């Protein structure tokens, strides 16, 4: 006969304020197998846990039921106390009488008490069938993968490497640097973006612990925390990285110049063989197959002829490499909202309506216009410039309800830069609210208005009309209550941030979640902001939510600390609550094989009895997450989920039936 102890927690008044704890204790006393039933104010506290431990020892209990908060909250706490009392930690069941009872049924105390009693009864019934489970351990691959080579990925890689672990940094583009490398200055200190980023890029290239894979993408992810197996697709560069000396002659001589430069936000052309920008790391060009004349017509080969190092190799092909990692950091960054969905701003068809990033490239002295702001239509220097904030942010109708957090600041910065470059210019900013919550940000925005004379208009723009040599911007200033009309030379849209287009794909490869806006979901918004629900996968930067450079760098360093804590462990404990196949019952139908979302089932030929070899399912213990899909789908009842066996569940259902 089982010797069960039932412990009911008051949780202060959280539970006891609604549920009559005495009645629950009384009812539990009468259940079959229950030796002792008691209550305490805070069962999770030190004296509460000691009460459980001492009672187990004194009464010789072999199973425990705790009626308290959710298992997610304190199951591990109570497992640890049961283990300290000398029992197997899995001889414990939790009856969730807080989230499932007192918090949701505070309007009917009697019914709440009845429900609490029932839940305790179910837990007692289940625990009677619990069996001791053994913890499993797995080795850890002491290497980390960082996906994305922007400032978030760079910082994470550098910090993980500084902890002494090997890192592979995978970047989709030909160079690392990300969005930050496209910027001119950074608010609010007006540091030159390249000046503070380039040293970090070089540090990545020179760090012995970091392997750089540019122009590469993650193709497949298998495995689990500590033991990920990742397939990385290295796109064909058509340039031999070992031979190339980065002289740039090929780029200079390449005759194809019709492709728009992604790095320059499409305001200038680039060659078919190119490095995105002069400080690129690695400083090795790639051939864009789609715009290369040789790949289109079979003729040209100019780059091959002029290359002094014989590094051009048209026969290169995409290559897949397989690597093992213990932890993965996702730092894929952001895209900018496509403003062509706004009719009032000209559907993206008015040439002098540009995006903030395009202005950023123009005003950058390393950009295609050499630091001169020129109107795309006629190349004139603009005098009156209208900035419009919240383009693709805070707009439910466009499916972008969130604030992009950086547009207020980058608009203020650009208005300041404009005034600095052209003292005769006048900038107007249409805003809804100014969100300048960072250190020194509010002061910056005020300075832009008082010292640089930028006029802020609280309201939206209703329409931009194209006139002969200017744009007519119509909008409203709600502070004066007037509709306003501005004769502008150029309009700059502060387009909001959205997740990378490929972000959802990657989320599915990694099995991590994303929210309704496509940003990756952290494990807990406050207490686990860099972890994901998949152990061993961490987040950094704008792929989690829009954020500025200081926040991104802080988050990247936090991620690196988490990775360090994981990789420093000797081995990893794995939950033993996983599936188990009874080969005698398995018919080899492969139902489970196809149902498993983690590819944790393998089919193998097994000798069931002597001379009787059958193809049966086998669970890969290290991959199984214990979701139970296979057990639910098995026609032959050959699969059971340990800790949630059919026997345990039938016992619970039995309690309900006989009441």
């Amino acid at each position, binding site marked *: 006969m089982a010797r069960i102890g039932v412990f009911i927690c008051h949780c202060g008044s959280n539970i006891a304020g609604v549920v009559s704890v005495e009645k629950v204790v009384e009812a539990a006393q009468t259940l079959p197998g229950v030796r002792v039933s008691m209550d305490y104010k805070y069962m999770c506290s030190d004296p509460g846990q000691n009460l459980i431990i001492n009672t187990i020892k004194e009464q010789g209990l072999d199973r425990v039921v705790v009626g308290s908060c959710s298992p997610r909250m304190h199951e591990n706490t109570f497992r640890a106390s049961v283990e300290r009392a000398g029992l197997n930690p899995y001889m414990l069941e939790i009856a969730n009488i807080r989230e499932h009872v007192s918090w949701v049924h505070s309007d009917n105390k009697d019914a709440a008490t009845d429900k609490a009693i029932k839940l305790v009864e179910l837990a007692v019934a289940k625990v009677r069938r619990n069996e001791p489970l053994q913890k499993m351990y797995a080795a850890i691959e002491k290497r980390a993968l960082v996906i994305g080579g922007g400032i978030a990925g760079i910082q994470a890689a550098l910090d993980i490497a500084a902890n002494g672990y090997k890192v592979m940094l995978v970047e989709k583009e030909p160079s690392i640097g990300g969005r930050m490398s496209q910027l001119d200055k950074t608010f609010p200190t007006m540091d030159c973006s390249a000046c503070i980023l380039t040293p970090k890029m070089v540090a990545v290239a020179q760090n012995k612990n970091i392997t750089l894979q540019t122009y590469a993408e993650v193709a497949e992810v298998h495995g689990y925390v500590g033991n990920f197996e990742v397939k990385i697709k290295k796109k064909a560069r058509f340039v031999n990285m070992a031979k190339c000396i980065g002289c740039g002659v090929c780029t200079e001589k390449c005759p194809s110049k019709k492709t728009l430069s992604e790095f320059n936000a499409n305001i200038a052309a680039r060659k078919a063989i190119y490095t995105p920008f002069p400080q690129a790391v690695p400083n090795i060009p790639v051939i864009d197959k789609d715009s290369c004349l040789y790949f289109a017509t079979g003729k040209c080969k100019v780059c091959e002829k002029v290359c002094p190092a014989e590094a051009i190799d048209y026969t290169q092909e995409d290559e897949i490499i397989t690597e093992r990692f213990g932890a993965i950091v996702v730092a894929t960054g952001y895209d900018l909202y496509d403003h062509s969905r706004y009719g009032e701003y000209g559907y993206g068809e008015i040439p002098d309506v540009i995006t903030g990033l395009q202005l950023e490239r123009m005003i950058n002295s390393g950009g295609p216009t050499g630091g001169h702001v020129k109107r795309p239509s006629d190349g004139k220097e603009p005098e009156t410039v209208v900035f419009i904030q919240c383009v693709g942010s805070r707009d439910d109708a466009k499916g972008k309800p969130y604030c992009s957090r950086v547009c207020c600041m980058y608009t203020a910065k650009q208005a300041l830069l404009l005034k600095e470059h052209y003292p005769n210019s*006048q900038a107007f900013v249409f805003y809804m609210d100014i969100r300048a919550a960072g250190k020194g940000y509010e002061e910056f925005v005020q300075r832009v*208005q008082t010292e640089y*004379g930028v*006029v802020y*208009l609280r309201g939206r723009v209703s329409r931009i009309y194209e006139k002969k040599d200017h744009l007519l911007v119509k909008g409203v200033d709600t502070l*004066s209550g007037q509709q*306003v009309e501005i004769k502008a030379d150029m309009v700059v849209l502060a387009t909001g941030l959205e997740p990378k287009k490929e972000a959802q794909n990657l989320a599915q490869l990694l099995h991590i979640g994303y929210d309704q806006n496509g940003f990756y979901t952290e494990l807990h918004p406050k207490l686990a902001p860099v972890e994901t629900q998949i152990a061993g996968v961490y987040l950094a930067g704008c792929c989690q939510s829009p954020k500025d450079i200081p926040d991104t760098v802080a988050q990247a360093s936090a991620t690196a600390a988490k990775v360090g804590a994981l990789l420093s462990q000797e081995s990893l404990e794995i939950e033993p609550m996983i599936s188990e196949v009874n080969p005698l019952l398995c018919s080899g139908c492969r139902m489970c094989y196809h149902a498993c979302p983690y590819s944790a089932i393998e089919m193998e030929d097994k000798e069931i009895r002597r001379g009787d070899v059958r193809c049966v399912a086998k669970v890969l213990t290290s991959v199984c997450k214990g979701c139970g899909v296979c057990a639910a789908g098995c026609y032959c009842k050959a699969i059971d989920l340990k800790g949630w066996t059919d026997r345990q569940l039938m016992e619970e259902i039995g309690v309900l039936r006989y009441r």
Partner: protein
Amino acid sequence: MRIVLGKEQIESAFKKKVEILSNQRILSCYQCGKCSAGCPIGYEMDYLPNKIIRMLQLGMTDDVMKSKTPWLCASCQTCTTRCPREIDVARVMDAIRIIAQVENRSPVKEIPIFNQIFLKSVEFTGRVFEVGVIGAYNFFSLNPFKDIPLGIKMFLKGKLSLMPHSAGNLRGLFKRVREKEKRSAVSDQLL
């Protein structure tokens, strides 16, 4: 109404005059509305004080000039004391009044008339001569008989004197101020 905005409006001469006369920076205002919240005469104003500042920021000269708000301002300085951006709003109102007076564009006639008569009385008698001020004000504001019934009652009770009680005139002081005003480059340039 729709207003046209451009460099011209933002850098209007009127705003510049107000800024120099009041020695305040109009663009400092971030439109929190604290001045309007505490204004004891706000209920009578056509535009609240913060809106006057906003109209200055956007170069809406005519609207500011037509507004009664600066003339209703009692210069109690509640706004000045409370402004988080440290703008002396009362002084801005003063500057608007000065410009309107000099350019003869004040939207209300009575208030400047009263101010003039009040100052004259102070100049010549060193204090306010009630009968003179009331009489002159009623006369110039084209309502000469307004206060006669009450005036007679007060006179009979000995509350009003027909002759001024001089506290010594302040003509010397007023003269010096006028000369100073003349010499001042600021007023030369602006008014």
